[in-house]
């Protein structure tokens, strides 16, 4: 029996073992030739650490030099090509950050960054936290290649993201071409970009340009990084003369060698009705909602006490221009009149954060009379949508694996199943637990 257990455990390990063979004997030989003499173990360890420090001294010098360049070119962005593998390795905590991103990603969304190959690319001084950009600080750009192509990047204390292996096929992505731009705008009413950053795929792109609403343009410096990254990185704090609606940054464009536009990222201004403003619900609660949501006419359509003692609630209110807006424990949204034709029969799911209460929220089309929740252990419960909404608590008796929610089934007035929305009971971090497990790299979550 012991042997059988041994084989079964071995099979379990075999199933999760990494089968990829990335061995490289030539690399071992090269390392053995380049390494220090090997008198004894302790001295070898010391020699190894000394070798690691030498590049760090050079790195400090490089960073100082870059900072000087940065200041000289206004917010600092040295142009040129940086050889990726000649760049200093990222420190352990940055590698760990990339690794944690892999571990924390939802099922099917692991960016598969290669933390061990992360490199420090450059530093720059800028401010993304204040509307006047008057508190700049030094930020460092780190880049890690992804398995299968693409890369992930991190601006310390600012921004980060991943370049997909293949460009998405959406119309917006096609318009953006080689550009991947994100931007910051003020939360205090200014709805034009104050700061943009991002990347541009190398290849046809020769320059990147900022275009303003008043017809003026400015070149955005790009730092290009060699293979396997094959992209350029840019940051661009919008100059103060362009922080008005009339002169705002309207787009960032990528230009080829002939000056032709091969990619464009626009920055549509938020309509005044879609801007968030502080509003008051009929019970006196103050909340930040779109101006379009008529909070004074809100109705609380669902209210119950959870097992954790908190209130579960849904407010519904008219939306200026048609449709409804809603507010519930975990968010706010608006449904335009065309919503009913566009969205699935059921739209929503578990709102888990690993701690109780675990809420379940759904929007249902008008032809749904009942929603049946089905669990792994064969149990089920039926709920009636109120004004098209369902909000309920998944009780602690359904937290354990084997008892979890697997499907929400929409039933019509005749009790006929017309739509099934399935849920993955093995998703990590959704269901509350007593003891989160260590996923590695400092990430803990409930299984």
């Amino acid at each position: 029996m012991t042997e059988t257990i041994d084989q079964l455990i071995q099979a379990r390990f075999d199933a999760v073992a990494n089968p990829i063979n990335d061995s490289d004997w030539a690399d071992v030989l090269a390392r053995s030739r380049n390494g220090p003499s090997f008198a004894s173990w302790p001295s070898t360890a010391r020699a190894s650490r000394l070798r690691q420090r030498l590049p760090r001294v050079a790195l400090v010098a490089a960073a100082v030099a870059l900072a000087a360049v940065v200041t000289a070119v206004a917010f600092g962005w040295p142009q040129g090509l940086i050889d990726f593998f000649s760049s200093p390795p990222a420190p352990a905590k940055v590698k760990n950050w990339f690794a944690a991103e892999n571990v924390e990603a939802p099922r099917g969304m692991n960016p598969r960054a290669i933390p061990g190959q992360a490199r420090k690319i450059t530093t720059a001084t800028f401010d993304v936290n204040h509307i006047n950009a008057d508190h700049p600080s030094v930020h460092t750009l780190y880049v890690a290649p992804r398995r299968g192509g693409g890369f992930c990047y991190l601006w310390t204390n600012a921004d980060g993201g991943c370049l997909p292996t293949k460009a998405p096929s959406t119309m917006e992505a096609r318009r953006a071409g080689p550009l991947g731009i994100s931007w910051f705008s003020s939360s205090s009413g200014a709805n034009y970009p104050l700061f943009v950053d991002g990347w541009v795929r190398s290849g046809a792109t020769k320059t990147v340009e900022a275009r303003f609403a008043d017809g003026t343009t400015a070149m955005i410096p790009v730092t290009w990084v060699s293979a396997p990254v094959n992209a350029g990185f840019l940051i661009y704090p919008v100059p103060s003369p362009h922080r008005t609606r009339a002169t705002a940054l309207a787009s960032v464009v990528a230009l080829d060698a002939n000056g032709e536009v091969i990619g464009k990222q626009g920055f549509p201004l938020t309509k005044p009705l879609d801007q968030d403003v502080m509003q008051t619900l009929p019970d006196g609660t103050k909340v930040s909602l779109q101006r379009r949501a008529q909070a004074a006419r809100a109705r609380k359509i669902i209210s119950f006490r959870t097992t954790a003692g908190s209130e579960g609630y849904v407010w519904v209110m008219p939306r200026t221009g048609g449709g409804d807006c809603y507010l519930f424990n975990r968010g706010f949204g608006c449904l335009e009149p065309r919503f009913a034709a566009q969205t699935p029969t059921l739209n929503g799911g578990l709102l888990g954060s690993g701690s109780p209460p675990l809420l379940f929220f759904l929007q249902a089309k008008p032809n749904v009379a009942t929603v049946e929740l089905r669990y792994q252990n064969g149990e089920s419960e039926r709920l009636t949508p109120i004004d098209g909404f369902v909000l309920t608590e998944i009780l602690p008796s359904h937290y354990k694996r084997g008892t979890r929610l697997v499907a929400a089934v929409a039933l019509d007035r005749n009790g006929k199943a017309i739509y099934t929305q399935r849920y993955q009971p093995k998703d990590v971090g959704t269901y509350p637990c007593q003891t989160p497990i260590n996923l590695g790299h400092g990430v803990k979550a409930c299984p």
Partner: protein
Amino acid sequence: VDETVAAIERLYRERYTRFRNGVAPVAGSYEAAHDAVQEGFARALRATGQYSGRGSLEGWVWRIVLRTALEQRPDEELRIDVLDPIFVEPERDLELTTALRELPPRRRLIVFLRYFADLPYQTIAEALEIDEGTVAATLAQAKQALAATLDEEGVRP
């Protein structure tokens, strides 16, 4: 020395994946494990004169690779006997991950070397510089604990 170099190369070519997978819980990731195996074998090549012939060559190389993996970690003072090895891709089998987390770290390391690196008891003992009997007893306890935890998942026959 030439024979030892040839044996090290043969060991690398035949067992690379087992080395990388077995050291990954110590290194923290497969990338770091690859680097530790590459550097560890390079060190072994540079130190062939130190291989005494007592114990297996594989156990000796494992000791070097494990120490290299430890050196590469940011917590430089870490020792193998206080290491907390992790399952580097926990999402691939959360039940197994949970079961492993319930084992004491030392026992967990021996389990990783047994099942990921496919090492016999003797080589584990040589790699960790402990008695073979200790390895056998530790693995017996670990298997009991794993079988009990994984019972619902069908490990127990």
